[in-house]
């Protein structure tokens, strides 16, 4: 590991990288602060921009958006009692009450400090755990890799919608869409329906612009957002945090960071689960549980450190196994692969300098997030007040420009529009879009490993249950499916009980 640190540092500390980190952090914080705009939408909109960049600045820009998104959501949660992102909901419980007590700046400061700590802790975990997990991943063969893909897809299909069956239908649809274009093993065309442009396949960024961005524009008709007026004059208190409060925050911050990392490593779970779990744990272990919900500094610190501690942890399965921890990092996988960087041990050896530059860059991203948060929070709050009359067409223009710029033709814009309509129909049928995203990202890897494994075994499917790793993954799939079904049944029971009451 140490031999890569020096060259990685040289690659990382360039003006270009620092610039893209800061642009990413600013854009991510602003997007996350605006209720209704998500971090995933932001990453999708700016993914085509990274196609013109090399791996390190491209990843730095996307990681900047991803990490700052964790903090940005808390700005609107604290100021206007509306979480900018779903995972900031737990922060809102104590952040807004503290703001109402005239301590807005203090609440924002606690959120920023805790987010930065969680983010850096997570980045360090990635730096130390990533190469170890990659060594295990290097022992996996094609059959094992297929099982890993099935494991990732099953969990995400299970947790991203109301029903695991509907999630699996979505995942199959995503995997099928990834089959469009040239066969990866024989180079024959598949599902091109006589359209010459489809020989190249469907670009991930174009599909995602339709599935996640344009559909949000169509959904504007369902929810009209009122104008958000963030009173930045509120941020005029001295923001002082007492020594006693720092002491009280230390334990929940550390514990929540550990929880965030553990939750983040598991595919399908994310920042929301981590922040709620940490918030409840901090409340249960606190000496002042009565303060929770009324402006507790521990509550804000626990929720914020957990949701940012997820950021580095989700990259561990992504960079080692190619399994994205959540939807946002799934998109980053394509940014890596477009630069010829494929997940696995080679990423930490052959391309070690680039990989370590990216992992060290994550620490840098968190430091710049801290600096921007310290000096620009008032500006984030002002940008949030952009009326939707202006915001909506701007997002559409970004979508169209992004889709066009991928291959510089209007066919891709049409594809994005078709995917937007498809996503609208899927939404009406209650089918979740995230498994489609995973299917699109993992499609080629899943199919190639499936077919290679069958070629090795002369078509005998028992190869998928023969090795010890295959058996472990099969057991994990069964346990995960059982746990998901149990959870859904519990939810249904609770809903029924609530309805009967």
């Amino acid at each position, binding site marked *: 590991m140490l031999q890569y640190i020096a060259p990685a540092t040289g690659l990382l500390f360039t003006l270009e990288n620092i610039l893209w980190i800061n642009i990413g952090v600013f854009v991510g914080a602003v997007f996350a602060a605006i209720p209704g705009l998500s971090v995933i939408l932001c990453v999708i909109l700016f993914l085509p*921009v990274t196609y*013109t960049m090399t791996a390190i600045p491209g990843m730095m820009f996307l990681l900047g958006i991803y990490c700052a998104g964790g903090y940005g959501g808390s700005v609107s949660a604290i100021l206007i009692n509306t979480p900018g992102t779903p995972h900031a909901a737990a922060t809102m419980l104590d952040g807004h009450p503290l703001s109402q007590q005239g301590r807005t700046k203090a609440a924002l400061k606690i959120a920023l400090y805790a987010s930065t700590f969680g983010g850096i802790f997570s980045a360090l975990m990635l730096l130390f755990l990533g190469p170890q997990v990659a060594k295990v991943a290097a022992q996996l063969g094609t059959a094992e890799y297929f099982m890993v893909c099935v494991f990732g897809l099953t969990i995400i299909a299970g947790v991203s919608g109301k*029903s695991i*069956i*509907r999630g*699996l*239908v979505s995942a*199959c*649809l995503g*995997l*099928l869409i990834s*089959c469009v274009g040239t*066969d990866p*093993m*024989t180079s*024959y*065309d*598949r*599902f*091109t*329906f006589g359209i010459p442009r489809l020989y190249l396949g469907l670009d991930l960024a174009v599909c995602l612009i339709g599935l996640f961005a344009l559909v949000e*524009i*169509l*959904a*504007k*008709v*369902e929810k009209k957002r009122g104008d958000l007026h963030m009173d930045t004059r509120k941020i005029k208190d001295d923001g002082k945090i007492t020594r006693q409060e720092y002491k009280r925050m230390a334990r929940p911050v550390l514990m929540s960071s550990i929880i965030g990392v553990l939750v983040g490593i598991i595919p399908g779970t994310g920042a929301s689960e981590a922040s709620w779990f940490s918030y409840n744990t901090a409340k249960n272990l606190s000496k002042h549980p009565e303060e929770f919900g009324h402006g507790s500094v521990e509550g804000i610190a626990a929720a914020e450190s957990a949701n940012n501690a997820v950021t580095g942890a989700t990259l561990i399965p992504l960079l080692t196994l190619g399994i994205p921890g959540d939807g946002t990092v799934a998109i980053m996988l394509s940014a890596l692969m477009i630069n010829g960087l494929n997940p696995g041990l080679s990423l930490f050896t052959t391309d070690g300098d680039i990989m370590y530059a990216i992992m060290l860059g994550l620490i840098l991203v968190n430091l710049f997030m801290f600096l921007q948060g310290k000096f620009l929070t008032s500006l984030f709050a002002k940008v949030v007040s952009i*009326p*939707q*009359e*202006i915001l*909506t*067409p*701007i997002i*559409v*223009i*970004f979508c*169209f*420009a992004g889709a*066009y*710029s991928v291959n*510089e033709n*209007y066919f891709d*814009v*049409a594809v994005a*529009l078709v995917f*937007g*309509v498809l996503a*609208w129909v899927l939404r*009406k*049928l*209650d*089918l979740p879009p995230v498994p489609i995203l995973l299917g699109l990202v993992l499609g080629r890897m*899943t*199919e190639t490993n*499936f*077919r290679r494994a*069958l*070629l090795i075994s002369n*078509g005998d499917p028992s190869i998928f249950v023969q090795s010890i790793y295959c058996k472990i993954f099969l057991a994990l799939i069964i346990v995960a499916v059982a746990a998901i079904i149990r959870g859904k049944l519990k939810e249904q029971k609770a809903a029924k009980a609530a309805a009967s009451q």
Partner: protein
Amino acid sequence: MKQWVDRLYARMDALGERLGEKQLRIPVDLTAGIVFFLFAVVILLVMPNQVVVSDKDAVDGRAFPTLLMVVMMLCCAMLVGKELYKLATKRPMNWKDIHLQTELKALVILAILVVSYLLARVTDLFVVGALVCSLGFLVYFRCRKPSYYAITLTLAVAIWAAFRFVLNVDF
């Protein structure tokens, strides 16, 4: 002009009010199950035409899509079976309300998107599509503030310029 716009808005409000009362109820799981079961059947039927294979291939290009469609059909069958069981045992099925007013508004937004795309494609000038798109949404949101028009149109041109001159996208 102002009167004409007010009259148009009043007419649209009246239409919206009428449509607001109308809604469709669909059994969502049953519909999703049937639609995607049929989709999987269609894909399996077109597979021989759409996926060329060679006799030499031990595992050909149809193997994986076929597996996917079989899994999709099984999942759909489970969805449909579950709903039919509920119907037989007279338990409540999963229903979803589709509001016609909402769908009509979505169609208007889709029309703005399609017109913007077509204009950009026909004129081969992205900026034309971007300007029409901005105007379309401002009118859709019934914006009456001239400053909003000025800001949005300026931003539309700025985005085009950023992609054209900074990122060197040729449009």
